[in-house]
């Protein structure tokens, strides 16, 4: 007898975005506005390019910003989709409301919530968030929006949301970066953007190259995606796999090149990273550095396999990351 699989259905909701926003960012007493279209989900304003020759850090340029959002339906039949998740005798315009709010995850600040009626979408209506103080934001501001029931409904229909404030659709979030985001390698690894023409990535240096500290270069066209890597699963997966190769280059460089300097404050973090992955003490690893070149080579051959395995169960568990990714893809399909 084979086990049967049941799909348990919870409350009906729409799992694709119904609304996108045009965005206009402006600053008090300044003539400079930033306009972004419906599909811009990641906006980096940590540097303000006032003109071709002048770029100012945002926090020097202004203490606050204003944000205008103009909602537009993504699909022509969006209202029909909303009708499916409310009750037959209800009218979408009276039952459903669009909520928009801004939040900063680091400071745990949520700015005012705006409730927009359905009739106001696609009417070029501007939703204004004025005088957002930049000192209440650290790193990024996230714009979130969803559709909820604005009124309750008494029903025995178990699959339809009937309570006030039930979420029936969630839109895509938009991220506005107000501060420079650390490069993907953090303090440990030299990872950065570069003009690579038709290549996606390239590892430079190491032991087999010019004996210089390895650099992991990715095509600069993808810089903004790499710097907001936690937002893109594709980037995360790429970096995880790239890290396996890159860590090995670094291991080789530390053990076999003469350039590695224990007194160099930029070199030591790389060693610390390798120790962290291998879960060995720094002092223990330093002892290997004292061996002669042949012994170090055989140590490298021994450690490289361990490194390849341990990196998969270090801070991020590769297997469960992959499982979750597959699961979310199955859900999307």
């Amino acid at each position, binding site marked *: 007898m084979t086990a049967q699989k049941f799909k348990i259905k919870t409350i009906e909701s729409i799992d694709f975005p119904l609304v996108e926003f045009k965005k206009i960012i402006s600053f008090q007493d300044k003539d400079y506005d930033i306009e972004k279209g419906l599909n811009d989900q990641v906006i980096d304003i940590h540097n303000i390019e006032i003109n071709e020759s002048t770029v100012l850090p945002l926090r020097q340029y202004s203490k606050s910003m204003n944000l205008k959002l103009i909602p537009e339906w993504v699909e022509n039949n969006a209202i029909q989709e909303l009708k499916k998740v409310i009750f037959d005798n209800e009218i979408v315009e009276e039952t459903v409301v669009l909520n928009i709010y801004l939040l900063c995850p680091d400071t*745990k600040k949520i700015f005012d919530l705006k409730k927009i009626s359905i009739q106001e979408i696609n009417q070029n209506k501007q939703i204004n968030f004025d005088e957002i103080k930049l000192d209440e934001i650290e790193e990024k501001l996230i714009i979130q929006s969803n559709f909820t029931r604005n009124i309750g409904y008494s029903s025995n229909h178990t699959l339809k949301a009937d309570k006030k404030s039930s979420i029936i659709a969630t839109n895509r979030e938009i991220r506005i970066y107000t501060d420079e985001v650390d490069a993907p390698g953090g303090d440990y690894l030299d990872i950065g953007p570069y003009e690579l023409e038709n290549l996606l990535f390239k590892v430079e240096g190491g032991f087999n190259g010019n004996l210089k500290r390895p650099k992991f270069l990715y095509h600069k066209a993808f810089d903004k995606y790499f710097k907001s890597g936690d937002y893109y699963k594709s980037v995360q997966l790429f970096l995880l796999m790239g890290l396996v190769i890159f860590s090995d280059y670094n291991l080789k460089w530390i053990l076999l090149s003469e350039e590695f300097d224990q007194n160099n404050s930029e070199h030591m973090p790389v060693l610390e990273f390798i120790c962290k992955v291998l879960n060995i003490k720094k002092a223990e690893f330093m002892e290997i550095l004292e061996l002669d070149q042949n012994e170090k080579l055989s140590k490298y051959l021994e450690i490289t396999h361990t490194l390849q395995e341990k990196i998969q169960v270090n801070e991020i568990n590769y297997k469960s990351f992959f499982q979750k990714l597959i699961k979310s893809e199955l859900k999307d399909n």
Partner: protein
Amino acid sequence: MNIDIGFKLEKSELAKSISPTENQVNIALFSHDALNQQKFSHQLKMRMIETEGEINSELLEKVEKINEEINSLLKKYEGDIKSSRDKGKLDFDIAKIFHSNLNFSRSAILNYRFWRWLTLSYFIEKVVWRWISDPNDMNKIRKNAITVFQRGFGERDRRIDTLRYWVIAERLWDRNKQYYYLDKIAESAKKNEGPFQDFINNLIDNNLYSPNENVTKVMGSIMLTGEKLFKTKELIFSFKRYHSYTNRFLIEGNEDIFRKEICLISR
């Protein structure tokens, strides 16, 4: 007010220098020396723990005012404070003193370096008062030193004592009614036995953020100042219920929704 101030040493280095678990000598620092701020600060200097950043006169005035206000509060309730449990009843009042004097923007929450420095440089005596019931008990000297270190230095950043107080008030402050909710809960805490510390733990640790701190204020009012004072389990389950309702959008939910659906009060 400049809050770009802190100890020169990084957190881990600082911990190595002063933690009572790293070195037996530091037990005296966080037990005996911590009873007197001057002595404690002198000991930090002896350990080459230096400050970095400009300390302006405004901040020093505020620090003095905070200390004075806390001292008069403690004097006022001197007769009522018999145990460390009683001391916790004044947490909301002390939170208001810190918050009303230190008019910082929200990003101050993240400046752990500043709060650590502030606590160890000016408020170590208050840390001892709050967390240690008998500082002269020689049998507990090591345990006490570790507690003072954890609350003053803050191994877990959010536990740094002064930051903890500031956050309590920040999460209950209202744009229009100012300290109305905080005062109400403070009053109730002084009169009643209840899960006030569990509530504080939720304010400090959980993701209860909402516009104008709606969720913490509404839930706090219902559970701690309403017609029925919640028991610990009821409070914990109410927060669990709030967090598990992922298909509800309750960050601006009104009191009625919270009463009926989250705190389960039928009326």
